[in-house]
């Protein structure tokens, strides 16, 4: 365990050193992320200046959902997005060889090698938006609710990681698989809104798929709901179970992928 912490420390240190050697790139990325947040907040303000609620969601509730979404996606993008995105390139160039040669858990090495510090900036911004949404009314939220909020945020990050990791691993069979960023864009776009709005589409099939097949809608909605709305306990149990299943499945898919790995010609 201490060896893995040591490896993790080295990965993060190397990522930091790399980002610091390209200060301009880092600054532009942080600026881009913050600009996106500002535009999102302006968009929400414009919408709610015309209507008091959307499908029962008040502006404060929706702002809290947005903050939660920024937190979940910020953590995912910081820790896992780049690692998932680069898998296709590693497979196509045969550089996955170097990961397989190392005497450590392959999934760990693949998942944690890079950290994007510029994306990590979204996490505190997300927390800030959540606190702003509550307008200082944090007394009304119990410690238990905050505890579940943290657990469900972590579960949401793991769900996103597992889905994108498995998707990225298909590059072992497909060789060229550059759709990770597209899938991420769709996942982020879908999960940003209250889950209820999807109930009306295609007879609820979209809602059912995005909750019970691939629970992308729950990754931001459920932690937000646990603080600003109400949550059925079985939904919490379901998300936690789905998280465990998806994480285990990602390990199974990795093992299957590595059995089929051909390694590119040198």
């Amino acid at each position, binding site marked *: 365990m201490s*060896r893995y912490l040591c*490896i993790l420390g080295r990965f993060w240190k190397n990522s930091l050193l*790399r980002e610091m050697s390209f200060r301009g790139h880092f600054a532009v990325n942080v600026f881009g992320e913050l600009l996106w947040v500002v535009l999102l907040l302006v968009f929400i303000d414009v919408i709610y200046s015309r209507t008091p609620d959307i499908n029962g969601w008040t502006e404060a509730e929706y702002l809290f959902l947005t903050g939660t979404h920024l937190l979940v996606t910020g953590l995912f993008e910081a820790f896992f997005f780049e690692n998932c995105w680069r898998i296709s390139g590693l497979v196509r160039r045969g*550089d996955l*060889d170097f990961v*397989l*040669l190392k005497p450590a858990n392959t999934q760990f090495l693949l998942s944690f090698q890079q950290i994007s510090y510029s994306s990590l900036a979204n996490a505190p911004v997300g927390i800030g938006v959540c606190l702003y949404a509550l307008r200082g009314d944090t007394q009304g939220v119990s410690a238990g609710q905050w505890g579940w909020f943290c657990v469900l945020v972590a579960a949401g990050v793991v769900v996103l990681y597992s889905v994108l990791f498995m998707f990225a691993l298909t590059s072992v069979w497909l060789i060229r698989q550059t759709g990770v960023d597209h899938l991420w864009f769709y996942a982020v776009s879908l999960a940003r809104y209250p889950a209820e709005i999807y109930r009306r589409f295609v007879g609820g099939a979209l809602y059912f798929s995005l909750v019970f097949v691939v629970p992308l809608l729950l990754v931001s909605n459920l932690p937000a709901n646990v603080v600003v709305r109400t949550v059925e306990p079985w939904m919490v149990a379901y998300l936690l179970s789905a998280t465990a299943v998806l994480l285990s499945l990602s390990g199974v898919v990795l093992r299957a992928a590595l059995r089929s*790995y051909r*390694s590119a010609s*040198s």
Partner: protein
Amino acid sequence: MSGIKVRHLVKVYRVHEKPHGLRASVRSLFRRTYKQVRAVDGISFDIEPGEMVGFLGPNGAGKTTTLKILSGLIYPTTGTAEVLGFVPWQRRNAYRRQFSLLMGQKNQLWWDLPASESFRLHQAIYGIEERQFARVCGELTALLKVTDLVNQPVRELSLGERMKMELIAALLHSPRVLFLDEPTIGLDVVAQSNIRRCLRDYNRDNQVTIVLTSHYMRDIEALCDRVLVINHGRLIHDGPLSDIVSRFATSKLLTLRFLDGVWPAGLESFGEVVTANPPMVTLRVPREAIARTTAQFLQEFDVADINVEEPPIEEVIGQMFAASPAPHNETRDA
């Protein structure tokens, strides 16, 4: 003590045959044809601990595929292999701690960071104690004369310097088996010589088992007492490099210097004229005729000097590959 033991190793790849032309490409979207390529075709060999063995073969012969199987990167189709008593493709950490694979055309160091940071990452991954890390790293950087370069970003190093850093990274955990795939490719002669010297010293001092593939015959000649020659996935020679010449060279080179600088007419009847620079001429003479031809020249002509030598090893190996028939190792399916 176990070294490397390979028995009847076969690796078959299923390769999509991409047709020419737009119409054929569209058709292939719906109906694809594949061919089964036997990249490694039933090879067997043993390598003793501490041996340094050269792996020779033309491009696509199956050398790298064999090294990748022995490194556990890919699974064989059939056959068995053991390295240090481990089955490589089970990818046990205990095995992965004891070997290294260095690929001359690939880079595992962090491109934008100094090599020293990648070395530290290796230290963490392999769990190398600080004292051992400092000692080994110090020895290797001194041996390869790159002590003052380890804190320079890898992207700013020359190809030769980068390859030295890759070699250090591969040796940091003191592997017992070292697989080297074209470690000197693209390097200038000085850098090649440095890498060769380092490998020879490292093998001598540490008794590491080394399997080396290289297209530079100088690498093999300088480092390996034994070579495995593979072609079309099949092992066609296992033994000393010098045996290749005696086994496969069909001719010798006879160089003559004539006293008056004038060549006798009809030299072609003795053999193929390879070079002719007065007063020297070099003939390629069939091996079985070399003694008779030499005697004949000495008796019949005014020869000032005579020299008989083996043809260059590259030439012999080229003949050997050409003579080795391509087996029917491709099958097609839809």
